[in-house]
């Protein structure tokens, strides 16, 4: 996806004199467009309409207004916090890893191994990931038991719990940082070693190189990746559900509960809740695309 975002849309000029033929050619994309309309666009549009209707089908803005009740605001706020924390952690840790493997002077198999691991780990999410962390950091998990037996420390007495904010964030990190590694590797490759040499040659220290050259060049890519990671965590349902069983008040969990039964006592408020999520996702993905495009101009 990132490559797609990076590349410019090369619009080839349409052939003008063949107007009549163009109509027939459009038939070739009808199956795809029909499918997308039926199973992607209409369902989303339907929710959008629903979020502006009351239960009798009349237009209203009340649902949007009702989003601002504390319970729903809290779920958005918690989702935003989890997404922001894991995106930030993922960006820092993932960038460090990718940079170390590409520019750290390590043998090249390190990079190959990291890329493969990242490909697997960024796809290893959902229920099995929750299981893995329960087996690691749950009440009888490997590390919890190890700490208790070796050091006499009971992790759960210190206030830590896998089933709370920080536990969930730690679990999300498992797919966040590998995703970062995959996204940012091309940008690090694009960071020419001559830029560093040119900077040194002109008298810059290592710090000045990072401050004035490397970070500004990578800045949009880092920010774009961060926003993408944010959206990635924001839409996650399965991991959170399997880990906390719905006790954490996250937006996807609330939408899930709404689908299973009318917990908000107003289905249209549920649609508005889902639309609010789409808006946040759309804004984050949009920002990410813009930023990636800007980097693409610098790093060919």
């Amino acid at each position, binding site marked *: 996806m990132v490559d797609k975002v990076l590349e410019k849309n090369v619009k080839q000029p349409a052939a003008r004199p063949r107007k009549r033929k163009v109509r027939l050619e459009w038939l070739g994309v009808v199956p795809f467009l029909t499918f997308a309309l039926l199973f992607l666009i209409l369902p989303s549009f339907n929710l959008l309409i629903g979020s502006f209707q009351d239960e009798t089908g009349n237009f209203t803005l009340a649902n949007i207004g009702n989003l601002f009740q504390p319970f729903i605001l809290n779920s958005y706020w918690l989702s935003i916090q989890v997404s922001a924390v894991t995106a930030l952690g993922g960006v820092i840790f993932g960038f460090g890893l990718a940079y170390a493997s590409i520019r750290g002077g390590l043998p090249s198999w390190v990079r190959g191994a990291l890329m493969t691991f990242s490909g697997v780990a960024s796809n290893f999410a959902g229920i099995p990931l929750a299981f893995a962390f329960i087996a690691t950091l749950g009440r009888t998990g490997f590390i919890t038991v190890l700490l208790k037996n070796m050091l006499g420390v009971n992790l759960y007495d210190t206030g830590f719990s896998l089933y709370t904010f920080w536990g969930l964030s730690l679990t999300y990190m498992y797919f966040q940082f590998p995703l970062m590694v995959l996204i940012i590797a091309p940008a690090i490759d694009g960071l020419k070693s*001559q830029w560093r040499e040119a900077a*040194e040659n002109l008298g810059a220290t290592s710090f000045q190189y990072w401050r004035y050259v490397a970070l500004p060049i990578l800045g949009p890519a880092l920010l774009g990746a961060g926003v993408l990671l944010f959206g990635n965590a924001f839409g996650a349902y399965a991991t959170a559900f399997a880990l906390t069983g719905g006790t954490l008040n996250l937006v996807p969990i609330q939408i899930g509960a709404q689908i299973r039964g009318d917990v908000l006592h107003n289905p249209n408020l549920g649609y508005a809740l889902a639309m609010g999520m789409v808006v946040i996702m759309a804004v984050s993905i949009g920002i990410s695309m813009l930023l990636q495009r800007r980097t693409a*101009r610098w790093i060919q």
Partner: protein
Amino acid sequence: MSFLELINIRKSFGATAAVEHFNLQAEKGEFISFLGSSGCGKTTTLRMIAGFEQPTEGEIRVGGVNITNQPPNRRQIGMVFQSYALFPNMTVADNIGFGLRVVGKPATKIRSRVEEMLHLVDLPALGRRYPHQLSGGQQQRVALARALAIEPRLLLLDEPLSALDAKIRISLRNELRAIQQRLGITTIYVTHDQEEALSLSDRIVVMSKGRIEQIGTPFEIYNYPSTSFVASFVGTLNILSAKVINADKGELEIAGHHVYTAEPLNHHSGVDISVAVRPENLEIGSNLVESHNTIPVSINQVSFLGAVVRVRLQLADKTLEMDIFNSRHLKLPEVGTEIQVSFPKEACLVLKGS
């Protein structure tokens, strides 16, 4: 004591030596080219001067001071890279001023120096552009201005023109030389292009397989190549095998014909050696000047190249090339005919190591 001294430099990567026995003394203001094919060690040597590589052995001195162990950011040596290496996130002006900014020069000083540099490279109006908005030639000018802005003690250029179009390459080349002479800055220029090296340099260092083959002025390198590598690398050459008949008289036998060199030979009679003749030294006709060598050949092919006509000649089992200048009155030789060609004794180069 010379301004730049490279003393017995050796650089090895693992077991292989990239550069060996490299000795060079450059005077202040000199323009020196390192010429050789890729992998000959010329760029490695340049990078050692810049400080990006550490010599395994030997010493680098600038102005009598040993800089071998100085980090690159303390050397005050400007470098221009093949791929320009402009910082894409900065404007042209910010690029040029970068070296002054990192050492904390005041902003007004930086601005006036940038302005001066932009005029020097003839891009006065482009200070606010970004590198990706410039052509390759303009980018390389900016790179040059950036390297010169810090008033470097030495200017290093690593194949700066090789990424550019032929036309821009030549005009920028002339401009580069003019700027270098105006500033009087000692310059090392790495290239694989013999024409560039010949036209730009005060002296050329021809390198092969990590060693210096010959150091000399363009004139010396072209006319008096000291090794067969130099002779064949610089310019086109017809290389012929010959047998020494009479060393004192400089008499040789080539494909059954007797040929004389200008100087006596250091070889024993009967020894097989290689001699070389440049295409432009061959002329149609016999005994044009009495002392010239003359050999009979047949004409294989005539290619009209514009200013020059290149003729392929057959001498026994060897193919020779001859260049003759075009003129309106030139009668092109016909393919298949037998003719005599001659060349001066001095043009008959005996190659070392043959």
